[in-house]
């Protein structure tokens, strides 16, 4: 509820939300100091599924790290692998055939839609509506089928290779993708009527959970969280990588700063991703998917390399410090959800627990990616 509330700090109790709690979608723990339904102070506790991906990146050869990258964020794995291959390609100066670049963009955008669809379902489930999750999963299933036919797996793809791709796409895939696009457009309209227009849903999100642009800058929040706060920042537009500069698409930005703005950004992004997919299918050039010349052993020259990409959750950066050997000297992952989640502690102060958890849902947290 908006408006000032008077909190009696001498009569609070500690509520331990998580690490096993239905709203945290994983093993995030939030220690909340509560005054009745109001949160006085919240403290997020991390590290329950820390797997040392960064250290693994330093101990393994570059191709061996590839499967790790798709295990950061199990919903939008494609984008994370994309950052890794882009960084290594730039470091070791490997040419990428144009067809491979287009297929990469196609896959990343398909993955973005599937990730947003799942987020949409899970978010509405956080608000207590279970049915949209099932519809979203059904639509997502069609995308996963497409991607499985090409990549061979449904979640942890490991599809990109340094210099190209693991497999080429065939005409079946292209036709199936063309068939899925109108289906998804229809579904998005359905979600609009079923969820976005719903009065209960709007009442729970409108004006709730304000995250201002200043707060986004302070904590380094990116992606839909920042775009919902009026910051027009998208790595695909601001620092174009791959072949993104050749596509015509918009970056949805909302200035309301509330949970509904973040919801709207993601719903609009799905539509924009569909536009990119359509264009990529039309422009898809013929040719090889792997470069003719490719070093047998990947040893980037000494140096410091950084590559950022826009994943479904925000700007994901990968920093590789190479000492010229086949292992990285330093392998740093800048995960978007970590920054997005950091602002939760400050943003939820004084909110009611229902609204705070709705806001947490609108941040689109994937815990394995926070802990890495």
């Amino acid at each position: 509820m908006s408006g000032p509330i008077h909190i009696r700090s001498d009569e609070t109790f500690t509520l331990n939300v998580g690490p096993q709690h239905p709203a945290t979608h994983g093993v995030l723990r939030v220690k909340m100091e509560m005054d009745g339904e109001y949160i006085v102070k919240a403290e997020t506790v991390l590290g329950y599924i820390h797997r040392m991906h960064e250290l693994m990146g330093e101990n393994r050869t570059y191709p061996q790290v590839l499967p790790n990258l798709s295990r950061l964020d199990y919903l939008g794995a494609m984008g994370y692998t994309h950052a890794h291959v882009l960084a290594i390609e730039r470091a070791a100066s490997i040419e990428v055939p144009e067809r491979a670049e287009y297929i990469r963009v196609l896959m990343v955008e398909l993955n973005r839609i599937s990730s947003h669809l799942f987020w949409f379902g899970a978010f509405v489930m956080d608000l207590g509506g279970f049915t949209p999750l099932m519809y979203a999963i059904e639509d997502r299933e069609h995308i996963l089928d497409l991607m499985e036919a090409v990549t061979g797996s449904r979640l942890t793809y490991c599809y990109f290779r340094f210099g190209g791709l693991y497999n080429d796409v065939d005409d079946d895939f292209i036709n199936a993708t063309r068939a899925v696009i109108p289906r998804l457009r229809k579904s998005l309209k359905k979600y609009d009527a079923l969820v976005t227009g719903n009065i209960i849903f709007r009442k729970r999100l409108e004006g709730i959970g304000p995250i201002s642009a200043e707060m986004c800058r302070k904590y380094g929040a990116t992606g839909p969280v920042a775009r919902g706060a009026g910051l027009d920042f998208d790595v695909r537009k601001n620092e174009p990588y791959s072949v993104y500069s050749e596509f015509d698409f918009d970056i949805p930005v909302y200035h309301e700063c509330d949970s509904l703005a973040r919801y709207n950004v993601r719903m609009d992004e799905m539509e924009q991703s569909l536009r990119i997919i359509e264009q990529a299918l039309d422009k898809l050039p013929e040719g090889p998917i792997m470069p003719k010349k490719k070093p047998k052993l990947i040893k980037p020259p000494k140096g410091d390399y950084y590559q950022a990409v826009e994943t479904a959750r925000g700007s994901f950066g990968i920093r590789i410090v190479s000492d010229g050997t086949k292992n990285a000297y330093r392998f740093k992952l800048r995960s978007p959800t970590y920054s997005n989640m950091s602002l939760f502690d400050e943003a939820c102060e004084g909110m009611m627990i229902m609204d705070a958890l709705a806001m947490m849902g609108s941040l689109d947290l994937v815990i394995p990616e926070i802990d890495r």
Partner: protein
Amino acid sequence: MGAYFSEIFLGLKSLAIGLGITFKEFFKPVVTVPYPFETIKMSERYRGHIELIEDEDGKPKCVACGMCQRACPSGCISLASKSVAYEVEVKGEMKTKKKKVLTKYDLNFTTCSLCGQCVESCGFGAVTFSKEYNLASFNKEDFHFDLLKRLEERNS
């Protein structure tokens, strides 16, 4: 006052629209598969655990070079080989040559991350993905696959 009533009216209307959508969905056919009774065939490129491929003689194609072992990020492949002497005709005369023969190819599936680096690194096309996915057991040892034995079982 007008806003008050219009909000109630619009709210009720939005609820009715939502009810209409779920009512329509109620009569649509189900989309799920009753899993244990019906299964889905995996796609051609599905990446299951790995299997050895045999040559025409029913022997594994593998030459025990160990590339897969080195490529594996999780170190879940362990193979062993022995040298076998065999005779081959070169320019009309018999010569004795040595060849590596695979004696053991173990896959520790508990640590495998199904990335497919082993299949890709194989220069002889000796490993492939199985399409098996109904893998469940209470016993950890059940996931230490002896791929050579599996190959023999397939052949027999």
